[in-house]
């Protein structure tokens, strides 16, 4: 029964992911061909259309882990643990995109690949925390223990997310302040804002597709794990 359900999740997730990857190719065309080049930063500014959506969706993924972790500790529902584990892995993949494109953008604009300011350092800590979350899950074999311990780590990770968003206001930093997710109107020309929002939507589609595949994978692994434990 679970193998059938797992297969359905993987098929659905694969279809959504393929749509997302094709749409990502469309974002490349939109950003490179139909969005104006910023005069001061030049072509390197176009990294913004990948870096920011990857960062938003990585933070969304880590928030899902924390929320599902909190709900799991309350409701003890295995589906929440499965969703948290899936979201954590996809969040780490999106985090890799964020932490790769960020320094590539920083080098021509700031003159350095990396700086240990609050926003960058907190983001790196959050990334390592969720790499640790995945390592913890891999190290624990008892499913109940694994779900409980990792839920606590997920909730702790969630507490870092608002600090990361507010860090550009709270500390002196090289990182630009938010230009869209802020109380006032977005400070971006309409063509650039359109490309950014389309890209964010495409990254969200990819996030949903990849999490759905990973959820099916977790279901199939639990099925095998349960049988091996019973044998």
């Amino acid at each position: 029964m679970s193998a059938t359900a797992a297969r359905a999740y993987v098929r659905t997730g694969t279809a959504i992911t393929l749509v997302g990857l094709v749409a990502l190719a469309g974002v490349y065309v939109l950003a490179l061909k139909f969005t104006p080049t910023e005069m001061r930063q030049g072509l390197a500014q176009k990294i913004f259309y990948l870096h920011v959506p990857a960062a938003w969706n990585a933070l969304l993924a880590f928030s899902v882990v924390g929320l599902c972790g909190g709900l799991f500790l309350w409701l003890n529902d295995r589906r929440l643990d499965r969703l948290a584990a899936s979201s954590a892995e996809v969040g780490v993949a999106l985090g890799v995109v964020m932490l790769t494109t960020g320094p590539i953008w920083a080098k021509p604009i700031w003159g350095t690949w990396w700086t240990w300011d609050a926003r960058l350092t907190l983001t790196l800590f959050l990334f390592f925390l969720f790499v640790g979350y995945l390592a913890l899950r891999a190290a624990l074999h008892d499913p109940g223990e694994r779900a409980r311990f990792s839920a606590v780590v997920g909730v702790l990770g969630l507490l870092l997310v608002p600090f990361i968003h507010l860090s550009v206001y709270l500390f002196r930093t090289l990182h630009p302040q938010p230009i869209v997710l802020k109380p006032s109107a977005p400070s971006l020309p309409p063509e650039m804002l359109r490309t950014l929002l389309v890209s964010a939507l495409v990254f969200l589609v990819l996030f949903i597709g990849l999490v759905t595949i990973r959820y099916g994978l977790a279901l199939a692994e639990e099925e095998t794990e349960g049988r091996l434990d019973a044998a």
Partner: protein
Amino acid sequence: MPPDNGGYMVAAYAATAVILVGYAVMLMRRARRAIERAARESP
């Protein structure tokens, strides 16, 4: 005249494609193997 830094843009766009497509393919293969294993071991 904007600065000539298109190489950084190309590197970032290429890296993003490699990471996302690579992860998606790896995940699909892992899922297929896990499902085959679960189906093989089912009574």
